[in-house]
């Protein structure tokens, strides 16, 4: 099966007064049709900029300086804005953390959804409205007919995110990039949204890139997970393997620092120090200053190892046997 999206050595930089920030520093991954890829990292790791870079949404002073993003074999890097616009919302949709980034506060929900349909499909207004109504129903919004005539401020936070999801699915895109879409929501509402995304993505065979700082959400949702640190993917693999047997010291530390069910009263494993500034990355492995296993060799560029099918780790440490087996 061919991947829906194939990213190779993607590099995005921001030219700031203090120097060049390498926000995305050589990122590569594939997303298969109908699969969910969890892109996990802490603030400043470059996970959101990666998401924006995929569909050419990086604004100055940021720019993509290298690499390739292929969607169904077609190169997206360097594509003119008009062609990217034809793709966005149609083939690749995006859901943001704050649904008010998607919704225009002075337009009725229905107007916005009909506009989205008409932007890509030459159908009648009547038919567009019908599709918008059906989409709202699919994400569990009661009495969709009346809700089409409501304004975004008349919806709760969870409802707005549902509308954003309905809009994302309007054109049955092959890929949805979701950037922390449940972070601002309450626990029970978050579960509702996760459940709807799960069902819809399965029904429509949509591939999803789920960007999150929350490992435990990715754990329940994703097929594969990529862990980012300082602009790079340091570990990538099937979610069950990475979460139960992480190989990179950062991934190990990150997973161990989540308070789990059996952790009460014990000290949490912690990663000392803090993430480096993207303006002054240490030479070699960027995690070296915080790594308990760092050696002199880590000052050189860390090699990429592939210990098992579908697994990748960027570290000099020899990979343990149990995994290779």
């Amino acid at each position, binding site marked *: 099966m061919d991947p829906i999206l194939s990213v190779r050595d993607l590099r995005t930089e921001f030219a700031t007064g203090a120097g060049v920030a390498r926000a995305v520093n050589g990122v590569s991954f594939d997303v298969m049709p109908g699969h969910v890829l969890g892109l996990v990292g802490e603030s400043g790791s470059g996970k959101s900029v990666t998401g924006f870079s995929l569909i050419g949404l990086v604004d100055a002073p940021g720019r993509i300086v290298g690499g390739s993003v292929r969607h169904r074999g077609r190169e997206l890097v360097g594509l003119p804005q008009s062609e990217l616009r034809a793709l966005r919302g149609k083939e690749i949709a995006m859901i943001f953390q704050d649904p008010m980034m998607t919704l225009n506060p002075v337009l009725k929900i229905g107007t916005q959804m009909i506009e989205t349909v008409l932007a890509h499909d030459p159908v009648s207004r009547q038919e567009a409205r019908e599709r918008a109504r059906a989409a709202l129903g699919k994400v569990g919004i009661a009495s969709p007919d009346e809700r089409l005539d409501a304004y975004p401020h008349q919806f709760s936070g969870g409802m707005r995110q549902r509308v954003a999801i309905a809009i994302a699915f309007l054109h049955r895109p092959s890929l949805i990039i979701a950037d922390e879409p449940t972070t601002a929501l309450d626990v029970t509402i978050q579960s509702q949204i996760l459940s709807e995304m799960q069902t819809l993505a399965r029904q429509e065979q949509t591939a999803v890139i789920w960007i999150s700082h929350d490992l435990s959400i990715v754990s*329940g949702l994703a097929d594969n997970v990529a862990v980012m640190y300082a602009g790079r993917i340091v570990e990538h693999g099937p979610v069950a393997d990475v979460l139960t047997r992480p190989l990179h010291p950062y991934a190990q530390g990150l997973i161990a620092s989540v308070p789990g069910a059996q952790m009460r009263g014990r000290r949490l494993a912690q990663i000392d120090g803090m993430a480096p500034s993207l303006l002054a990355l240490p030479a070699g492995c960027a995690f070296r200053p915080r790594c308990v296993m760092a050696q002199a060799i880590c000052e050189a560029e860390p090699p990429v190892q592939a210990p098992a099918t579908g697994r990748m780790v960027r570290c000099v440490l020899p990979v343990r046997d149990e995994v290779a087996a």
Partner: protein
Amino acid sequence: MNASDVVEPDAVAGPALSAGGAVQPLIELAQVSKRFGRKADLLSRLAARLGGRLPLRHVHALDQVDLSVMPGEVVGLVGESGCGKSTLGRVVAGIHQQSSGDLFYKGGNVANLSLSKRRDFTRRVQMVFQDPYASLNPRMRVGQMVSEAPIAHGLVSAVEADDYAATMLRMVGLDPGLRRRFPHQFSGGQRQRICIARALAVKPDFLVCDEAVASLDVSIQAQVLNLFMDLKDSLGLTYLFISHDLNVVRFLSDRIVIMYLGRVVESATTEALFSAPSHPYTRALVEQVPQLDGRRQQFRPIEGEIPSPLAPPPGCHFHPRCAQAGPRCRIEMPALRPVAGGHLAACHLYDGGTGA
């Protein structure tokens, strides 16, 4: 209880024994309610004078809440937005005045404290807030901020203040050499440590932490959670730890209290709450806790939205979203009753049935 035996000025934290020898709660809330509402404006006063009435809308942030925290105990307070958990924290810390009900500190009613005892109470109960960016004065040096309150309370003299600030910063794992810097020169995790140092500087015995790790990255969150655990052991602190994150609360707490729309719906030891959650809302929360095992989870959410606290549903506030609700739940508010030893739940399922 008479007010004079409330606070011994130099009482060390630890199990406080009352005259009878039984351990006395450090903090106790009895039927505490808090309403927020507009004061009557000109229009409604005019309407009242003309004999008419415009309805005044109140938010019942807290509705007859009972809670006690024993010395040395860590109580986790969990709920979704608008459930009143932050209001409860602020009432406990003396920032909000409750609309009705009583707040007791070491058995003494806080409302009846003399001015000096009241000062002592406000010093001994401190709060750490969610957003370390908003709770530090951007124009003060961190050393000044940490030593300001101890000077005001007469714990240190102005001469000793600088050394004292250095000691406090060292206690929370910060380099004391940084005390002449401003907050913007620190990262989020460091700022939260500064907030903790500031709270601890007045030698409190009770710390209210309102989502104190919610804005931190996972690896930094682990550092701060470990710091809270260490400080509890070394200083004998008691915590009320408010959070929406059951994983965090489960890690820290001896006992967990669940709130929904201004009311406590369940209270149990951490073990009991997770092994035998009783209230349907608690059960839903516990089931939805994401687990880090890499197994694909089928999310089975509870239906519906959190109702507006301006117009909460009658009877049990949770009944419109509850699969087990019966006619009685729509009319009668369930009381918080024991379902097992020390395990309380407010649900008609354990109180003679739902009438279904």
